[in-house]
């Protein structure tokens, strides 16, 4: 399963942090800080998978956005790596010309989208149209 998912901007600030296993606030912040350091330093050239304590770290960087996830050893690294891209494409579909700012300004929406895709660290839905269906319904209701 996915233990946690982080979205980081290029300055190393956390945009989204979702933990699917309980961690104390303090440990959580320490962990996040450490992981961001590791991933920013490793960059693009090295392997995107990394053993880290008792789990595996998978990360992927885009222009101004970094995805980091911690997964258990029975999870498929490549599948998660590519899942990041699916998240990105789904967000991009909802926010045309997606940028990191869109995420900052629409945290609730991004959380909602992620909740449609991952529940409890398990992938639930991979069809972008279906992921976005409820949120589009919501937007339609407001107009």
């Amino acid at each position, binding site marked *: 399963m996915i233990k946690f998912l982080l979205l980081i901007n290029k300055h190393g600030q956390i945009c989204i942090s979702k933990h699917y296993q309980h961690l104390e606030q303090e440990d959580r912040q320490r962990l996040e800080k450490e992981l961001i350091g590791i991933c920013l330093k490793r960059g693009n050239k090295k392997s995107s998978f990394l053993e880290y304590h008792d789990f595996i770290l998978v990360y992927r960087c885009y222009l101004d956005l970094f995805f980091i996830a911690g997964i258990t050893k029975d999870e498929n690294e490549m599948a998660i790596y590519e899942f990041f891209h699916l998240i990105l494409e789904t967000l991009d579909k909802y926010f045309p010309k997606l940028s990191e700012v869109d995420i900052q300004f629409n945290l609730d929406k991004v959380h909602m989208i992620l909740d449609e895709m991952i529940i409890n660290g398990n992938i*639930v839905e991979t069809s972008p149209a279906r992921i976005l269906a409820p949120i589009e319904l919501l937007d339609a209701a407001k107009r």
Partner: protein
Amino acid sequence: MPAVKGDGMRGLAVFISDIRNCKSKEAEIKRINKELANIRSKFKGDKTLDGYQKKKYVCKLLFIFLLGHDIDFGHMEAVNLLSSNKYTEKQIGYLFISVLIGAGSDLMKLVIQAIRNDLTSRNPVHITLALQCVANIGSRDMAEALGSEIPRLLVSGDTIDAVKQSAALTLLRLLRTSPDVISMGEWTSRVIHLLNDQHMGVVTSATSLIEALVKKNPEEYKGCVSLAVSRLSRIVTSSYTDLQDYTYYFVPAPWLSVKLLRLLQNYPPPEDPAVRTRLTECLETILNKAQEPPKSKKVQHSNAKNAVLFEAINLIIHMDSDPNLLVRACNQLGQFLQHRETNLRYLALESMCLLATSEFSHEAVKKHQETVITALKTERDVSVRQRAVDLLYAMCDRTNAEEIVGEMLEYLETADYSIREEMVLKVAILAEKYAVDYTWYVDVILNLIRIAGDYVSEEVWYRVIQIVINRDDVQGYAAKTVFEALQASACHENMVKVGGYILGEFGNLIAGDPRSSPIVQFQLLHSKYHLCSPATRGLLLSTYIKFVNLFPEIRTQIQEILRSNNNLRNSDVELQQRSIEYLQLSNIASTDVLATVLEEMPPFPERESSILAKLKKKKPSTISEPEQAKEQIKLPQAQISNNIEPLTIPTQGESSTDDGFEQTPASTGSVDLLGLGTPTSSSAPAIGGGDAGILLDVFEALGSGNPSTNATPNGLDANGLTMGAEENFRKFICKNNGVLFENDLLQVGVKSEYRQNLGRAKHVGSFVEGGAQVQQMFNAECLQEFTEAPVFTIQYLYSGTQQKITLKLPVTVNKFLEASQMDSSIFFQRWKALSQPSQESQRIFKAKFPMDTEQAKAKIIGFGLSCLDGIDPNPDNFVSAAILHTSNQQVGCLVRLEPNKQAQMYRLTVRASRDKVAKILCDLLEIQF
């Protein structure tokens, strides 16, 4: 200003912009505090806020929290939003609660009520929101309140897909947090059929739920194998237009395929030939697709395809039955080893590591040895190099050991610090395991010390000494080689230790050569003396006294060193004592006595290398042992991992003898080495000048069968246990701490703690005199139910005689119980569900203790069970429930104890969801009442 999408909550957008424009952290905090004060006043104000306003403020609070600031109000307002009929307001409310309200909050009752309302509403969007909230929080209260509702949603025919999807994972969460609360009713038989659901999203989430259920009870859900295979088959053979939105860059449903392939790894290869053929076809198709020209040049296409491919290879390795598939998998991975994508090289190395352990593909993996060695040398990323090391270790066997070890040694010189220690352990293990010629082994280990001395742990150099002592064909060679190694001007302290030890034992074998005459050996060793730590110096002193015996001609020189102020008056007590004693020994003892006392070390008993244990501890999951992987000893079935620590306790004993050396046989530096050997009377050292030395070695006797040649059979009972041990052992069934054994010399106490399937016991052994205490820690893991407790033995020397105590470690199966609470309806429902004859065990027996209700209750609770009131109509009866945690599964246990005071009898009934458990618990409980 970028727009907030959807309904513009303008205030929020302005606020977010303000925060982003803050130049400093202080400014940000100031702005946030201003906003918090504003919101607080709004909430406190007399004006009732409408839904929109509440939503706006709650949303702001949420945003502030997500920025990393604490929020201590607004919870109530968020809960209010839950009962709104407007979707947007409800949604913000749920989001806030999922993120900010913990399971223990006072508001939980209200939240659960709101969730219940939404779950029973007819609006699927509201139901989904409520389910997601349960999935996020997943508290016990929720499980209790909603545990029956959610399964119903999952399997009911008229539930819409999106709700089913959320229900599956919500249920999974509740099963994880409170497995005992969710009743495994009729829905369990229907859940596997969700794999057939038309809707791919439902299948995706149901697969996760099913996998979790399967892990608990594979037998019950066996039917899912054929369903999963046929689903998988339909996916891999579909054209990419069939699955529409679930096709990702021309790859049909990659994530679902991965999940299905993983689900199948919980079972052995399918028995039904038709299913099996179909699965083989699927796997072949996946392998074929990897060879086809890509349908798209996009990296997304190949990534998704490879994710499926790697999982398929994992399944092939797991089934380990089809040589053709295994070899094909290996060839495919071989291609990836040279791929330009680092990620693929990494994963290929990782998967190949598993392939190397299969007999069918081991040889095929070996073909890639050169490539892997090149990877080790040229990869730029340490995590990839690490994988290469793992693979080399896994593919090593007798035919290529010399080459692989050579390459690893060479790499070690430049290896990253982070992986050096592990590499040293691996090299040491391979060298020992595949040594045909032990001179090669000695060379390898000495090279290890030379190259990476700092990373050579005690286990490694203990082991080389152990092997040299036990094999007389290498002793001469070892002596010669260490002598040469010590010539280096700067050599590692570990080298001095090994050198000192080996020359002390076998220096005579090379003394004939004038270049390594006794005095040369001695001077060489002593030239390192002052640079070493006290522990090493102590060892060297022992070497010197051994030299006195081996080479009488250099006695005077050695005595001179022992007599020097630096040693005789050393501030380190141990060194001082050794110097004094050895000096005395060399003065007083006759040649014969010296020869006896300083005799060559006897061979060590054969036992599994402690290096392997160390490596396992270091990387518990990634170590694939070349051959032993599948034959772990499981006897008794509580695994004890035990750090053997030699303990020497000099005491002021009353058994002092005149010269003080009677029971101090030769053992150069054996203080350092005792961890390896079972002490036999001839190797128990502890030299006590005028005092009796008592050596206590607490060691493991788990099926390793060290028959301890000269144990005095002092009072053993029928089971080979020391008298009285059994009774004390029984007392520990209901308690965790206390005295396990006591006689007039020794008291053995135990402190233990258990958490689910893990336990830890601390033995506190103490002396009557002086009251000195030593501790020995055991960690236990319950793999499955067991009846025999592990046995351990304590041996020590007292007044020159060997004492031996054999005791049972007070680990019984009930220690891994976790009490659970339930009401009477659930209890009786479960009780009835466990009606198979093998699930029940009943005893009627006479009371052995006074029939006191309070005491009985205390025993039941101490045993690890709950005491449930108000379930049995007869208040005198005891009814309990618990879960037995083992590594493989969790076993539900129900107990009923009916006392009959007139007849002084009990009737005890135990039911458990796993055969045998009921009987074992019954056996343990019976002797308590």
